[in-house]
């Protein structure tokens, strides 16, 4: 049986067929669907869960591997930074049951804050990394990763990209096999004290040599000989672009194992072609390796370090050919993503803009609060940095900004890594004000349950973190809950928190408007007789409101009846 599958879906299928029994992940575009699809399999065969963050997910998967089953965790590229600590030492302990970590890089930054190349983590952690180039390979490489993990006693990283994770291509289905190993206490292998870790490091270096030998002949690395004029060494999505751009006018060495890289295989390929290119997105990992082994390929001198490649880009760079196209003379207005109509974050950011405060931002839908017309954000770095960064900011400003700066962080992000920052605020005392935007879901990645919303990945009832009690427990006495759908009350509460001579948390609680459990009111409408065309309702940046024939107009296909705009209108022109 064969069908079209997303790369992520094919990875999940590969997990199932490989006999994986434990999956733990934190959502992150473009990796999220791996775990969502994994959770559609019988949980008695393959159990899945959302962990509070990538470090916890990775450690849980390592624990499951110790126990003797095949385990897995998935994350986006920046998530691997969070999980790097356990990974780098799991490289030393090795595995019992096979352990594979999938990381999805986001070339082109479709939905990310940076564009880092995860191959550098594989080199740093000294673990093998496989990189599929389509959905069929996603499934095959996932299964092979478990064989490698157990054969070489190592975690294996499966590297995806947005293009591979989110493209559908044909996948053949096979049966599941089961693999289980006995648990045995083995302190020298699994307790990484210096005394045990020193001999382990020796083993890791020997393992890399063996893996490099494996890479010389592994079916993961494939030579496609057509022409001896041009040779292309490439990996992942870049292989597909090169193959389409150059067709059979070039030969290819497609590297499915991107760490460690083979030596003889590359040298032999290079010797067969007149002109050698290395085509790899992001960093010059393969190119640097080629130079180390005495080759001089054309690489980043011609191709960029930035963004996604394509067949057109490569055709232009290598062959000097360009596509013809037509375009209009008109300026086409951009269409950036915006907060949805009815978004509970809108009221918060409108209030913050009105108050003119410094906003220490974070990662989630609410990062859209930085966009016009709300423009209510000053900084955004990584998950959790809003809370810890505000503490540093306030300390640096010697208290001057304590009454006019806030951190904003979503419920899921707060659980992920905001809690420790809040502990720091309480412990090292700044009178910082933290707004937890609790919309009862992990929103930006497409609605995943999380430890604060009382449901597990399967939608079953689960323990819910009591955010108010948690804040109290870490030493924050001033904790208020407000409905951000009530503008006047939201402003009053945020002002009071800012004025307090103590650290304060405001929990802005209203569920995401896209949740199926949220009942919407009928669309509001504008009474054009009462509308004075003052545009006050436009200040909240709702995509459902526009000016039509000089009067405010509400698009009834978009409006979900949140009523925020009616609170903006001083003339009572917006009616239920």
């Amino acid at each position, binding site marked *: 049986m064969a*069908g*079209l599958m997303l790369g992520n879906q094919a990875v999940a299928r590969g997990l199932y067929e490989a006999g994986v029994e434990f999956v733990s992940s934190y959502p992150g*575009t*473009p990796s*999220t*669907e791996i775990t969502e699809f994994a959770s559609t399999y019988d949980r008695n065969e393959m159990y899945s869960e959302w962990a509070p963050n990538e470090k916890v997910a990775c450690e849980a998967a390592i624990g499951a591997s110790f126990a003797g089953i095949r385990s897995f965790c998935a994350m986006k590229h920046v998530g691997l930074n969070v999980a790097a600590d356990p990974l780098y030492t799991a490289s030393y302990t090795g595995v019992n049951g096979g352990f594979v970590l999938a990381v999805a890089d986001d070339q082109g930054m*479709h*939905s990310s804050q940076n564009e880092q190349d995860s191959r550098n983590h594989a080199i740093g952690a000294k673990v093998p990394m496989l990189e599929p180039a*389509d959905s069929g390979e996603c499934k095959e490489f996932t299964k092979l990763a478990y064989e490698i993990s157990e054969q070489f006693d190592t975690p294996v990283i499966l590297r995806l990209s*947005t*293009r591979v994770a*989110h*493209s*559908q*291509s*044909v996948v053949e289905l096979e049966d599941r096999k089961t693999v289980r190993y006995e648990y045995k206490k083995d302190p020298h292998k699994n307790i990484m004290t210096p005394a045990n870790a020193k001999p382990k490091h020796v083993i890791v270096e020997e393992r890399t040599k063996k893996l490099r030998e494996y890479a010389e002949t592994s079916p993961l690395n494939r030579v496609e000989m057509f022409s001896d004029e041009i040779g292309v060494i490439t990996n992942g999505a870049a*292989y*597909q*672009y090169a*193959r*389409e*751009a150059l067709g059979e006018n070039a030969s290819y060495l497609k590297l499915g194992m991107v760490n460690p890289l083979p030596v003889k295989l590359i040298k032999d390929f290079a010797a067969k072609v007149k002109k050698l290119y290395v085509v790899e997105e992001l960093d010059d990992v393969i190119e640097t390796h080629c130079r180390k082994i005495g080759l001089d390929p054309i690489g980043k001198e011609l191709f960029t370090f930035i963004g*996604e490649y*394509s*067949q*057109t*880009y490569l055709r232009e760079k290598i062959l000097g050919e360009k*596509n*013809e*196209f*037509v*375009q*209009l003379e*008109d*300026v*086409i*207005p*951009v*269409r*950036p*993503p*915006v*907060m*949805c109509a009815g978004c509970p974050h809108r009221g918060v950011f409108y209030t913050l803009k009105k108050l003119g405060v410094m906003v220490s931002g974070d990662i989630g*839908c609410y990062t*859209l609060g930085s966009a*016009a*017309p709300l423009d209510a954000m000053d900084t955004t770095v990584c998950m959790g940095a809003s809370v810890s960064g505000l503490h540093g900011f306030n300390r640096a400003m010697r208290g001057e900004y304590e009454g006019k700066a806030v951190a904003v962080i979503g419920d899921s992000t707060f659980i992920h890594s905001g809690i420790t920052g809040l502990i720091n605020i309480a412990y090292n005392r700044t009178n910082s004000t933290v707004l937890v935007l609790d919309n009862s879901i992990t929103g*930006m*990645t*497409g609605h995943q349950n999380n430890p604060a919303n009382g449901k597990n990945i399967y939608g079953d009832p689960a323990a819910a973190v009591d955010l108010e009690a948690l804040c109290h427990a870490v030493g924050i006495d001033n904790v208020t809950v407000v409905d951000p759908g009530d503008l006047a009350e939201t402003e009053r509460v945020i002002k009071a928190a800012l004025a307090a001579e103590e650290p304060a948390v405001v929990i802005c609680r209203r569920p995401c408007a*896209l949740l199926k459990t949220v009942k919407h009111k009928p669309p509001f409408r504008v009474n054009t007789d009462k509308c004075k065309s003052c*545009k006050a309702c*436009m200040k909240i*940046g709702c*995509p459902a*409101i*526009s*000016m039509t024939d000089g009067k405010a107009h509400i698009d009834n*296909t978009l409006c979900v009846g949140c009523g925020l705009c009616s609170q903006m209108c001083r003339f009572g022109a917006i009616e239920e």
Partner: protein
Amino acid sequence: MAETKAIMLVGVGGQGTLLASRILGNVLLSAGYDVKVSEVHGMSQRGGSVVTYIKYGDKIFSPVIEKGEADIIISFEELEAARWLPYLKKGGKMITNTQQINPMPVIMGVQQYPDDLIGKIRAKGVDITAIDALALAEQAGSSRAVNVVLMGLISKTAGFPEEAWQNALDACVPKKAIDINKKAFELGRGA
């Protein structure tokens, strides 16, 4: 060897381009082609400009479509038709819904929604068909069925057996919405 064909679905996040791409991919696969469908998730629900690439033929390598490469562009919204026009191959065909959704710069009054975009595209010598898919979707029973109306329209020119389309609808559309979507498909096919 069958030539590689490239179709783009473009629109605004929330208009259901992903479901449309699943239906199309399903039909092409049943017709025996190698198929790749590429979509970008993440920001897609937030009202941004969204695009899906569908390529089919004997053997597909790159899943992406670049400027000057699309045989057909199906646009769910007028401004998006204009935005993605450069991706159309010379002699390619464009189908657009006449619905207009204002982007934030237009809502804020910073920029204008350009007028007569369809006329301007046609004046460039492009073969463009425009239909009011929103009206047909509402006639079928849901404004959200614009995507399936457009699939009905494309089914006329794409040339695959109607049974393949019906099977794809059954496979891709949630059961509770199937009746409305089948009606939307018929209305699109008849337009």
